[in-house]
């Protein structure tokens, strides 16, 4: 007997130790797993802030557009923070502050006066003028790394009443219990006995979390027991807030095809297309009601059940005092307001955000980017994006209507760049918001005539005597290509003009003259220079490079044109300005940089030739639309596979490519298919004239039709920037004498005459 007891005791102790060890192991494992879960909110990506000051080029409409984007509320009375009032020519705004890396912008009420299309004055409530104000920046996107398909939301970003409702409905004692609720379990047991089977949970939020995270969905008593143990262990180790933060981002709330909807942030987007912070009480209640059965109460499939369930949640919340009776009545009478199709969960600016991500990837690991609280300040400009996007919509409609895109497959890539700083202000990666292939970054397409300004710039650098009026032969020309075949390029309209002015080579995009020009100066030298200027020539060095067989992405094209339109100074393209960590300290600042890649003399003359192109050449549909002095270049490749357009005002440069991903023959033309997109984009932004500033060595003078410098009173004389040496050789009459001095002797050399 004694022996038997002894044995039993031994067995019992062994079991106890085993269970104990098991628990210790389980506990350690559980904690490790839980800690490895990242509910961190990834890097936040911000647009450029709207900065206003006296003289800023913004209309009241434009400022209102941004206030609406920032969710300021239009009110009739005195605005408080987050509200604004329209008062004739002025706006009163209760500005939300923001802690910028270079100083804090306080919450304050300001008055902004507009006069026509400018900001006339900015004042505070005491009518004291303010030098400069900055609105808080628009959030473009929030990166979430580990859960790429979820919108992770910080607990602190949930509306307070949402959390209160959630706790009231799902686990009233959440903040007091130890992970499991005895009353809940007792109630469940009684109900189960009454029902005669195991059906009801009585789970706490902690248990639900455990179930979602670690366990299968089967309903057994064992699983229930393990779940309870886990819940107790978790509760003992982690704070209620930490558990809640995991819960709200983990809870299962629906299914769409093979995609599971986890977390309220994701669900808010999935059911309402909005962030959680913007949901009404009725919408909040609907999401909370879904916890009990995402498919049973699916508002898309069973709207009546969902409505009933929602109102039950509202009823319960009101009875516990979380919302007022009045709120309950209001919310209960609201319609479901769930769109039939779930909103595309890609953000509104996927093309731009992708560029930001790629820039960030150079400096940060994905762990750093998904760690909590990184703030990324970019140059994204919502006004410019609006213009570009409008251009995109118009173009797609037009291309469909004209039969060039009957299947709705045409693609495009567009990018707007601030010329002096190289900052990228807006990007469209494709025809719609779906982000697969990024056509601005990754499409490699022949650039066609977009190469010509670079050929001319290279030529002017080779021989500084060249200028807008230099005469260039435009006749049939045949040369041996890289494979030893004869290459005989034709003009676009297959006409020959005999002799053209150099500026027409760009303005009217003349192929044969381009080839004559390059050959006259030495094909190899021009090709070498093109390569230096960032136009890839390739190892076989085809002469057709002169007419644009090089393949480039719109991004690279934009960078090249940034140099050309910036007096030859390259500012590297960039979207990211500054990255700031959780604590507000600056991790990265990408300072302004500039490198001379091309002589100012060549760049500025070519720039002016592009202005002629915009005024009377291939880009006239763009240039003539606006009163400002613009510059442009069109590009079209063989069989209309690619249509390109580059257009610029005094400040910005837009580049767009239109074509098909499979590179099919498409009959697209740069000036028809591509030009309007950039042209429309400029409709929405404040345009400025291209600058008349000339660098050392150039002066404005007047040219006659045959390219001679004459008096400005001569008939048909046109003002151009010209090399000073040439200006000094001005003709005394209006150019009745044939071509003289500077060109005379060397024209012969390579005009073969």
């Amino acid at each position: 007997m004694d022996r038997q007891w002894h044995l039993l005791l031994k067995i019992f102790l062994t079991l106890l130790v085993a269970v104990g060890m098991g628990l210790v192991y389980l506990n350690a494992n559980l904690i490790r797993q839980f800690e490895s879960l990242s509910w961190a909110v990834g890097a936040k990506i911000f647009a450029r802030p709207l900065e206003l000051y006296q003289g800023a080029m913004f209309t009241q409409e434009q400022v209102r557009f941004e206030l609406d984007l920032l969710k300021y509320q239009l009110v009739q009375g005195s605005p408080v923070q987050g509200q604004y009032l329209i008062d004739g020519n002025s706006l009163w705004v209760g500005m939300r502050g923001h802690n910028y890396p270079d100083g804090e912008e306080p919450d304050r009420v300001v008055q902004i006066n507009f006069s026509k299309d400018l900001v006339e004055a900015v004042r505070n409530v005491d009518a004291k003028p303010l030098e400069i104000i900055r609105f808080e920046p628009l959030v473009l996107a929030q990166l979430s790394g580990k859960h790429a398909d979820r919108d992770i939301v910080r607990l602190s970003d949930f509306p307070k009443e949402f959390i209160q409702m959630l706790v009231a409905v799902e686990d009233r004692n959440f903040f007091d219990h130890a992970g499991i609720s005895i009353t809940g379990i007792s109630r469940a047991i009684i109900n189960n006995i009454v029902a005669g089977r195991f059906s009801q949970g009585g789970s706490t939020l902690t248990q639900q979390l455990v179930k979602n995270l670690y366990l299968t969905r089967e309903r057994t008593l064992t699983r229930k027991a393990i779940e309870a143990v886990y819940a107790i262990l978790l509760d003992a180790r982690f704070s209620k807030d930490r558990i809640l933060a995991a819960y709200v981002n983990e809870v299962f709330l629906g299914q769409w095809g093979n995609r599971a909807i986890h977390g309220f942030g994701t669900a808010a987007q999935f059911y309402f297309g909005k962030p959680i912070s913007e949901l009404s009480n009725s919408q909040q209640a609907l999401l909370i009601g879904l916890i009990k059965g995402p498919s049973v109460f699916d508002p898309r499939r069973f709207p009546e059940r969902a409505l009933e369930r929602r109102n039950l949640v509202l009823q319960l919340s009101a009875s516990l005092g979380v919302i007022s009776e009045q709120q309950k009545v209001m919310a209960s009478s609201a319609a479901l307001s769930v769109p039939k199709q779930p909103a595309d969960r890609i953000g509104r600016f996927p093309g731009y955000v992708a560029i930001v991500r790629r820039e960030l990837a150079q400096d940060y690991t994905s762990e750093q980017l998904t760690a909590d609280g990184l703030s990324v300040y970019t140059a994204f400009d919502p006004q410019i994006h609006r213009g570009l996007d409008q251009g995109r919509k118009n173009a797609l409609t037009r291309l469909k209507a004209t039969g060039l895109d009957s299947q709705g497959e045409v693609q495009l890539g567009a990018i707007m760049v601030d010329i002096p700083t190289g900052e990228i202000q807006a990007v469209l990666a494709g025809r719609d918001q779906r982000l697969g292939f990024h056509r601005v970054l990754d499409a490699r397409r022949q650039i066609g005539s977009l190469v010509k300004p670079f050929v001319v710039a290279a030529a002017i650098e080779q021989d500084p005597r060249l200028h807008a009026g230099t005469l260039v032969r435009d006749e049939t020309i045949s040369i041996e290509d890289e494979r030893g075949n004869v290459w005989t390029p034709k003009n676009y309209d297959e006409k020959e003009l005999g002799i053209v002015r150099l500026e027409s080579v760009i303005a009217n995009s003349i192929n044969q003259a381009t080839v004559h020009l390059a050959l006259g100066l030495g094909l190899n030298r021009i090709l070498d220079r093109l390569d230096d200027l960032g136009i890839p020539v390739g190892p076989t060095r085809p002469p057709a490079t002169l007419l644009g067989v090089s393949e480039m992405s719109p991004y690279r094209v934009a960078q090249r044109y940034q140099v050309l339109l910036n007096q030859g100074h390259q500012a590297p393209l960039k979207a990211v300005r500054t990255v700031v960590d959780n604590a507000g300290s600056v991790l990265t600042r990408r300072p302004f940089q500039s490198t001379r890649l091309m002589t100012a003399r060549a760049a500025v003359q070519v720039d002016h030739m592009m202005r002629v192109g915009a005024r009377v050449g291939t880009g006239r549909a763009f240039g003539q639309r606006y009163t400002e002095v613009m510059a442009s270049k069109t590009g079209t490749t063989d069989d209309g596979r690619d249509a390109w357009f580059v257009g610029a005002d005094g400040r910005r440069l837009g580049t767009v490519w239109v074509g098909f991903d499979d590179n099919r023959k498409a009959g697209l033309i740069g000036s028809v298919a591509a030009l309007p997109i950039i042209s429309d984009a400029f409709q929405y932004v404040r345009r400025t004239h291209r600058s008349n500033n000339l660098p050392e060595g150039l002066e404005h003078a007047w040219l006659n039709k045959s390219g001679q410098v004459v008096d400005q009173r001569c008939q048909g004389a046109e003002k151009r920037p010209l090399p000073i040496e040439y200006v000094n050789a001005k003709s005394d009459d209006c150019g009745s004498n044939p071509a003289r001095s500077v060109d005379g002797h060397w024209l012969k050399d390579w005009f073969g005459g």
Partner: protein
Amino acid sequence: MRLGLSLTCVALLVGCVQAPVSRPPVVDASWRANEDDRVVSSKRVVPKVSLGGKTQNDESNKATPIESIAKIEPVDQPKEVREIAPPVLSLLEEADQLRTAGDFEGASARLERAQRIAPTEPEVYFQLSSLRLEQGSLEDAVNIAVQGVDLSGADQAMKRDLYTVIARAKDALGDASGASEARRLARASGS
């Protein structure tokens, strides 16, 4: 440092005497001045980066601003005038204070904000290049100053100051011939 600031104050004062109502006018870059024309540069009234700081020769520091103050003369009816907008001025002033306090990053951020508002204003490029010089980013100092020269149009005094920055940066880079060429250009502009 202190000297730099006090010179700034003098410069501001002179600016006020010149044009009590608004900021003194600046000849627009597109306007071609005659060789003999005196051009009032807007930069007279903005805080001047004292190029020397800790590392540079102090004498040349003092010389530049005093000389330029002495040169201010009325302009005969320029066709167009340009002035530095108040927000740009206030950012330049802030940048100057930060630079003096040794916060180069902060100063740089202010100057780049100023550049976004006034991207063709050579004064901004002058300040940026001077800051890069002081930070020891010598290549950047040269490059940005070169761009400033291209934006200076007929503003000879501005060109001289920019060439002076280039000369100092080239000195520090060990490019003696580049430095002396820049000095030559500075002298040619400063007449």
